[in-house]
């Protein structure tokens, strides 16, 4: 499969790659605009997973039989594939259940042993709960605290405010690359530069970034970068922690079990080298293979092309949404990603979501696991439409028409 870079965007061909999109929902064409929650899977990913189970399934790293060898080759091949995609070394790619587990791994294995009373962990006011709560848990245990940098009205980070919170007490920095609620793309390169000048390690939560912009782990210079496969056209329950080799080598195991040890005796055990030190138990072989297939798919399509299409659709959608009476967009930062969060005056987000659903439009309503951000904007919930490679202007037309209906029903 190849999509030429020079041709116009092959939207219909891409849609045909995603079997789920062909169906009718509530008697209407499905406009799937809940991609920040999870993306749909192209046939290539579904088939790679099926093929693995149909032809190669066996436990990895253990037996010497043919299937085990095949499974191990594919599974470790997936690690190479993932490392290449993000320009990391293969030893820097730790497999996890997703971004949340990756963040928890860093909180418990890396930060917890370093943390002392009075230390501070600096995050931003636009973090997902999974980039707040793990830090709060380890901070509470050690008498440390979690500080959040302010967010400006347009949804961008108050970078000067962020810098003011940096001090000799700052032990760690965790920041979201792309906000799942606002679409804001944070200046992670500058954040990392400032942090490195002070010797502070940085974790970047890339869950919402990796499907929409190229990430070069080596060039970025973050100590840790996390991602979830299911937001990148891959399977659910799988993800990665990308960690600097020297960081990972210095970290103790977090979970104990098979596959993460060098030797085990009752006098004491020794640990395998990274990444295996952090991968206790039989891993998600199909998950790794599925993510590798997703990366092949994205690469063939071209992340730049996808980003350009999402930008086009975002540019088309923004003025159309603004025309809807009483609609207020939350998050309008320059250069933001394909996320449209909004509130409709006089209408509960849940009602808006229910009405959109009746028109075949799938969006997310609620606090999007960013309750501090909801408080920042003085709302309890928003309706969020989020874009992926298969969205076009027609999805926006369907959304806008359904929103007019919602306005009519809820405000008449």
């Amino acid at each position, binding site marked *: 499969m190849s999509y030429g870079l020079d041709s116009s965007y092959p939207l219909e061909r891409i849609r045909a790659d995603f079997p789920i999109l062909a169906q009718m929902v509530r008697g209407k064409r499905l406009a799937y605009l809940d991609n920040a929650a999870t993306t749909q899977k192209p046939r290539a990913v579904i088939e790679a997973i099926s093929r693995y189970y149909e032809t190669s399934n066996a436990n990895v790293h253990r037996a010497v039989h043919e299937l085990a060898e095949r499974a191990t080759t594919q599974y470790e091949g997936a690690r190479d594939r993932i490392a290449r995609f993000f320009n990391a070394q293969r030893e820097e790619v730790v497999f996890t259940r997703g971004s949340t587990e990756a963040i928890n791994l860093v909180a418990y294995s890396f930060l917890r042993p370093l943390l002392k009373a009075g230390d501070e962990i600096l995050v931003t006011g636009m973090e997902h709960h999974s980039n707040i709560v793990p830090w709060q848990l380890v901070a509470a245990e050690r008498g440390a605290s979690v500080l959040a940098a302010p967010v400006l009205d347009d949804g961008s980070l108050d970078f000067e405010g962020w810098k003011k919170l940096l001090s000799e007490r700052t032990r760690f920095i965790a920041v979201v690359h792309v906000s799942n609620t606002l679409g804001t793309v944070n200046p992670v390169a500058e954040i990392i530069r400032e942090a490195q000048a002070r010797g502070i390690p940085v974790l970047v939560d890339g869950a919402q970034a990796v499907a929409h912009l190229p990430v070069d782990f080596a060039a970025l210079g973050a100590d840790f970068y996390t991602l979830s496969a299911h937001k990148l056209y891959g399977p659910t329950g799988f993800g990665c922690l990308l960690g600097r080799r020297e960081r990972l080598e210095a970290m103790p195991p977090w979970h104990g079990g098979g596959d993460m040890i060098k030797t085990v005796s009752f006098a004491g055990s020794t640990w395998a080298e990274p990444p295996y030190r952090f991968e206790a138990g039989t891993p998600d072989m199909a998950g790794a293979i599925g993510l590798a297939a997703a990366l092949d798919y994205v690469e063939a399509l071209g992340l730049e092309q996808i980003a350009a299409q999402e930008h086009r659709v975002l540019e088309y959608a923004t003025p159309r949404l603004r025309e809807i009476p009483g609609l207020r967009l939350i998050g309008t930062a320059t250069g933001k990603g394909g996320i449209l969060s909004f509130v409709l005056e006089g209408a509960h987000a849940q009602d808006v979501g229910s*009405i959109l659903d009746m028109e075949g439009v799938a969006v997310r309503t609620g606090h999007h696991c960013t309750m501090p951000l909801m408080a920042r904007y003085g709302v309890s919930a928003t309706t969020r439409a989020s874009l992926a490679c298969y969205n076009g202007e027609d999805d926006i037309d369907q959304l806008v028409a359904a929103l007019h*209906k919602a306005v009519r029903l*809820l405000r008449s």
Partner: protein
Amino acid sequence: MDIDELAETFELLGDWEERYSYLIDLGRKLPALAEAERNEETKVRGCMSQVWLVGGLESDGRMRFNGDSDSSLVKGLIALLMALVNGKTPGEILALDIAGSFQRLGLESNITVNRRNGFYSMVERIRALAAAVRR
């Protein structure tokens, strides 16, 4: 207004838009709870929308409730629920097939079955209150 009359009305309404519109109207006609009545004690567990319920057994041996929600659709569902249960004895309430009744009205499952909207928690609370006073 009993369930048969309601079912008849809903049947007369054509598409989902008319049904939703009628439901929202029912909710609007339902008297809002006073600010003081919307407190932690009267709040029913829910996630996406907030739901409050007051009332209980009265001296005539019948139960009467009043409910409210910040969601227009849920408030409409509450109006229907109130029509179903108000003025009934605890035993009569426990004998009601509330889920079945809402299904008969042809209200789409996304608003009635979604446990996160607090409506089902309200049904459960009414049933629990009825069970507690029946003995």
